[in-house]
């Protein structure tokens, strides 16, 4: 595997501040021009337990997480015990002097001497890390000033002092950890995780109403929206339950709001009747589903790609839908933006499937070009339509003119029952057939608009790795490794997993010597969908369902087994 990167793991109990150290360090690295992939592994508890915050960093592109550790920051003794087998040959362990490093090289940090109070230990750790990674101190000093600015100058200078002293102490130590190659880039990047990017993409598309019920790992979509609600004029409401969240969003959408509903699998299970209602009433809604392992409560804070089937089949009856599965924060932004457009354009429920790994994974992201974004479909605010307006007028595309109630003398009538073109209950079975046909015709439009999967790597490859969602990065890294071993390898990433347009990918699959689908679930749900829709059967599948993100090492090992 390419070895120009350093994998830093900060481990400790919940409540010890490892996320603070991790976020600080990761952001400093991004500002310094490095590429990062952050993986957060935590337990479903507020205090105690064992959590880690991993930052894989390099001056070159990094695609995914890695298991082996080069720098282990142990906030407790258990961290050393649990991760010693993952330490590389050059690994260093950084820990308080009271913690036994079990013979591993590293530094025993005199936190008590360096910090006037225990609350400064995180900043002291950053001072030591800055030295180990040969990072310019200014990246940290700027961040300290920005972070503590609101608490007053005294707090800022106290933190700066601790940072400086820890750095000075580290300089006196003979740690012998080699510096990373310096990055060449100077342009500004954003420090974002997947859920930040989803929220920002929704805002860019004009989302102005969000109703949600809290559930890990989706909650940070809502919290990011809340953070910017005042400036963006957005209304965010925490509903009493997921059923209310989806139905409230549909009411707001009906009234002309642009709506987004974040949830996770278990919460989405409760929303299913609302998805069916969106299908029947042709009310636009974007649901962001951040996946975690199920069934039921499953592993609440871990990752999986196990809910594709759930969103594909959610809701009784036939109605069209689209499902996006971004693989990077950039795609999270772009695809949520597109989801907002598609939901309005085709008056259908549209899903954005992410997962805990991507939701929490910070990266260095090239700033989004807001001026280059395509226009987003919007409801018709015409006020002069005649009284004969029909919300469900039968059209060739299946899309009926969507007017907003209260904007003219027209009446907008929606019904969850089968309805006539003017929206009223009917049991006329001929009308029923016309309405089903009309609704399903929108599916053809959704299919015409489908984003093609991204093909990258060698043409006519010996091996083609297919994947979707967050498995993109690990597949790319695997391909890189195999190419270095002389194997012609390519990756086919489905950023939109429904509808499928076989013309976009069957020829590519046919061009490959061997095809392998890589998915973070037990049954390889996308492989099954492709087989169902096209008859195509992958040569092999690689799956993962232990709650951890798919990595290049995992894929390579499974490929060996499959050989």
């Amino acid at each position, binding site marked *: 595997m390419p070895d120009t990167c350093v994998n830093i793991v900060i481990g400790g109990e919940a409540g010890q501040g490892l996320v603070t150290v991790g976020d600080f360090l990761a952001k400093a690295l991004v500002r310094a021009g490095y590429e990062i992939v952050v993986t957060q592994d935590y337990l479903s508890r507020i205090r105690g337990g064992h959590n880690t915050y991993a930052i894989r960093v390099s001056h070159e592109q990094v695609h995914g997480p890695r298991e082996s550790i080069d720098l282990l920051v142990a906030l407790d003794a258990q961290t050393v015990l649990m991760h010693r087998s993952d330490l590389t040959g050059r690994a260093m362990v950084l820990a308080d002097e009271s913690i036994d490093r079990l013979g591993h090289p590293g530094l025993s940090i005199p936190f008590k001497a360096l910090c006037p109070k225990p609350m400064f230990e995180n900043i002291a750790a950053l001072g030591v890390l800055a030295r180990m990674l040969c990072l310019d101190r200014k990246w940290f000093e700027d961040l300290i000033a920005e972070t503590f600015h609101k608490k007053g100058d005294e707090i800022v200078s106290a933190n700066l002092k601790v940072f400086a002293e820890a750095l000075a102490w580290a300089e006196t130590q003979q740690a012998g950890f080699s510096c990373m190659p310096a990055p060449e880039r100077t342009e*500004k990047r954003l420090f974002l995780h997947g859920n930040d990017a989803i929220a920002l993409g929704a805002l860019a598309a004009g989302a*102005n*109403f969000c109703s949600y019920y809290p559930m890990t790992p989706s909650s940070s979509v809502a919290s990011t929206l809340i953070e910017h609600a005042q400036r963006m004029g957005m209304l965010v409401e925490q509903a*009493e339950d997921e*059923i209310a969240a989806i139905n409230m969003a*549909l*009411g707001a959408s009906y009234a002309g709001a642009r709506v987004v509903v974040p949830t996770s699998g278990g919460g989405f299970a409760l929303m299913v009747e609302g998805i069916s209602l969106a299908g029947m009433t042709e009310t636009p809604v974007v649901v962001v589903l951040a996946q975690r392992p199920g069934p039921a409560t499953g592993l609440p804070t871990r990752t999986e790609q196990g809910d594709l089937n759930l969103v594909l089949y959610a809701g009784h009856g036939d109605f069209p839908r689209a499902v996006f599965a971004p693989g990077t924060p950039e795609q999270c932004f772009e695809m949520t933006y597109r989801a907002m457009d598609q939901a309005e354009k085709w008056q259908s429920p549209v899903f954005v499937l992410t997962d805990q790994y991507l939701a929490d994974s910070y990266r260095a992201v090239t700033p989004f070009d807001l001026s280059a974004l395509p226009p987003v479909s919007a409801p018709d605010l015409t006020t002069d339509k005649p009284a004969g307006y029909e919300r469900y007028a039968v059209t060739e595309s299946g899309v009926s003119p969507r007017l907003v*109630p209260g904007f003219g003398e027209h009446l907008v009538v*929606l019904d969850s029952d089968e309805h006539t073109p003017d929206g009223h*209950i009917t049991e006329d079975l001929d009308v029923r057939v016309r309405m089903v046909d009309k609704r399903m015709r929108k599916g053809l439009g959704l299919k015409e608009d489908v984003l093609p999967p991204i093909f990258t790597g060698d043409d006519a490859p010996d091996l083609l790795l297919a994947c979707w969602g967050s498995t993109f990065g690990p597949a790319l890294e695997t391909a890189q490794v195999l190419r270095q071993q002389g194997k012609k390898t390519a990756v086919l990433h489905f950023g939109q997993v429904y509808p499928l347009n076989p013309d976009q990918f069957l020829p590519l699959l046919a061009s490959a010597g061997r095809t392998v689908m890589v998915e973070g679930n037990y049954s390889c749900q996308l492989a099954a969908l492709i087989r169902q829709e096209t008859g195509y059967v992958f040569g092999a599948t690689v799956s993962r369902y232990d709650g951890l993100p798919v990595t290049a090492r995992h894929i390579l090992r499974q490929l060996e087994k499959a050989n």
Partner: protein
Amino acid sequence: MIPIEQYGTFETAWCPGCGNISINKALKKALSILDLPPHKVLICSGIGQAAKSPHYLRCNCFNGLHGRSLPPAQGAALANTEVTVFAESGDGCSYGEGGNHFLAAMRRNVTMSYLVHDNQVYGLTKGQASPTTAQGQATKFQPWGTPSMPFNPVAVAVTMDVPFVARAYAAEVDHLADIIVQAARHPGFALVDILQPCVSFNKVNTYAWYKERCYKLGQDHDPSDWQQAMHKAQEFGDRIPIGVIYKGSRQPYEQRIVSSVRRPLATSKPDMAALADILEGYA
């Protein structure tokens, strides 16, 4: 006043003599008094016989799912404060399937009126006990008597300081219309629990049963007095008070949200300069 004819006349799927018919009449009358043209009225309903009501009235209508009249009504009311929003459904939909939404709506206090057709029985599914059926009352599905005690929506709403709480009786059309007018004019969430005979499935709470018991609250009842209101809310037996039980003055939800929200939300476009600035903050 807008002529009542503007709200249309429709053939209904209701039984002759159904209380829904007079409630529909009272609602049209109230809208006319409120001077609301049909396109400025937005009614969300759930599922059940009562939930069909907005189809029998010219208005903007969101006839959603069973138990879910309140969430879309609040969503629509928050998205557009320039339309007058009602949620309308039966006792099973409103107090059973939608119970949690009722609790949350009372806390949230979005300006809208909740008209509950309370006939103390399930009609559409043919005669099961509802959340307001009297304990011990036998039905085809509860032949040994309804085992649970009935829900008292009026007392719960008064307890929660819902700003407008009323009990009405379907057969008193003018009285009901007047209450709906007051409910729609009152800022915040308004509950109107409308007692209504079911001529097909409820052989206990008949027109005669209600006629014998219902009496109109007079000048001696002060709806701003919470204690008095609570007392009246509990009165349900040989005598049943109808009228405005309670009036409070809690601040409506829409006055407590992010001040920058521009409504109707349909006209609000994203401020891309502000968003560009927000993105800078992630650098």
